[in-house]
């Protein structure tokens, strides 16, 4: 039986917890199956053997970016609905797993999230109020997040086996490239403006901004060493209070 709108809505809501049972053995398989259950119940209604086999199949190891899990849910439900041969579904699952992980990491964790975060920090260091800055992060970020989930479920169901072509032709990779360029620009700006704000009143004008810019250049040149030192610098800042007057 074909799943209805209500089944898709339930599956979509369940994908919010796709990583609820993330573990080192089966990764997101538990969350994927949990999200698939409303659709599998409908698809295999009246056939408990097929239903059980499908659940068992989807509990096998699977990993993908959590925001692209709906794409996998839609495509896998379509394959189950079309009664694809189990071996083919498993091969498709394996192929989907690596590609959705890489695209999602690149687009969301490396590009979209830093973009929204840096925009909010820039807003705050330029004088935006705390709640306005927080909303400047949360609203655009989650508009993109929810859009990606809804788009993923719809496109996954409509494309089925052709979902790989959908991802390649969607422009997600190109979008990630542009966002990364914007991130780097914002990163340089924030390094200076936030450093200036942190030094405000305690250091002569421009000293904080110059320290931020110099440290950013050093950090970009030796990320491992300087990145670890950033936390050490905060410890130094904490200990500085004990310097006698």
């Amino acid at each position, binding site marked *: 039986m074909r799943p209805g709108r209500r089944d898709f809505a339930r599956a979509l809501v369940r994908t919010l917890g796709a*990583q609820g049972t993330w573990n080192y053995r089966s990764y997101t398989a538990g969350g994927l199956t949990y999200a698939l259950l409303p659709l599998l119940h409908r698809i295999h209604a009246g056939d408990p053997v097929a239903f059980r*086999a499908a659940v068992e199949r989807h509990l096998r190891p699977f990993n993908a970016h959590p925001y692209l899990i709906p794409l996998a849910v839609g495509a896998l439900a379509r394959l189950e609905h079309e009664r694809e041969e189990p071996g083919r579904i498993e091969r498709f699952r394996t192929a989907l797993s690596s590609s959705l992980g890489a695209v999602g990491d690149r687009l969301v964790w490396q590009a979209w999230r830093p973009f929204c975060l840096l925009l909010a*920090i820039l807003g705050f260091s330029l004088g935006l109020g*705390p709640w306005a800055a927080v909303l400047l992060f949360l609203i655009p970020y989650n508009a993109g997040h929810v859009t990606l989930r809804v788009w993923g479920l719809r496109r996954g169901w409509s494309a089925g086996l052709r979902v790989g072509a959908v991802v390649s032709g969607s422009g997600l990779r190109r979008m990630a490239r542009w966002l990364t360029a914007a991130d780097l620009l914002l990163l340089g700006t924030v390094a200076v403006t936030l450093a200036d704000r942190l*030094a405000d009143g305690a250091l002569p004008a421009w000293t904080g901004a110059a320290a931020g810019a110099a440290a950013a250049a050093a950090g970009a040149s030796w990320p491992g060493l300087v*990145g670890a*030192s950033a936390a050490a610098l905060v410890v130094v*800042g904490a200990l*500085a209070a004990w310097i006698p007057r």
Partner: protein
Amino acid sequence: MPWHAEPDFWSWVLVSLLGGLTGVDAVSWPQVMVSRPIVSATIGGAVMGRPAAGLLAGALLELLALRHQPFGAARYPDTGPAGVVAGAAYAASGGGGAAALATAAVMGWALGWIGARTVHVQRAVSGHLLADVEVLAAEPRRLERRQRLAVGLDFARGALLGATFLVPAVLAVRLVPAAHGAGGAAAAAALAAAAGAGAGASVGALGRARGRWWLLAAGAALGGLTVWGLA
């Protein structure tokens, strides 16, 4: 209007619950990123009546955390409860200076990595919850219950972190003497350099964009112009 100008029993309860909410958000549910330090620390600061102080701590933690990306099974700081505690502790310092901010950030950073250890344990527990595939396939309701149980455990994990570390963090921040003169200047310089170093070290974590050095330099120049314009 501050909710609680001073930490008391109810602010401790609130911080614990917020630790749970932000802890569960990072991975388990619903991943809307209230677990990021700029959000969680602002909320922590708001509990003590000073959201702007919380956000300042959160922005600093954010630049330290940005280079740790959640790829695959990578370990990264659990910034939800850490941000709530750091934001609340700095806000409770009563508008302390750079050294108090640095102390709150140190407490938050340490808690973030302790939280990462607990996430590791949580993942091992989740592995056990899903170990018996055949039983779960025969009885899907059991899978649904275990999914909810795992999310609940993650919430409890975050709440426990918040509950345990709020008081030590507030005490540590309040112990810091108000730094003036050389001490205050050194603390501020260290924080400014830490923010810059954190930002610069994140460049590699954002991918290998062509011309990334020029973009970073152009951004820094833009930041300089902005500071000059606002002066």
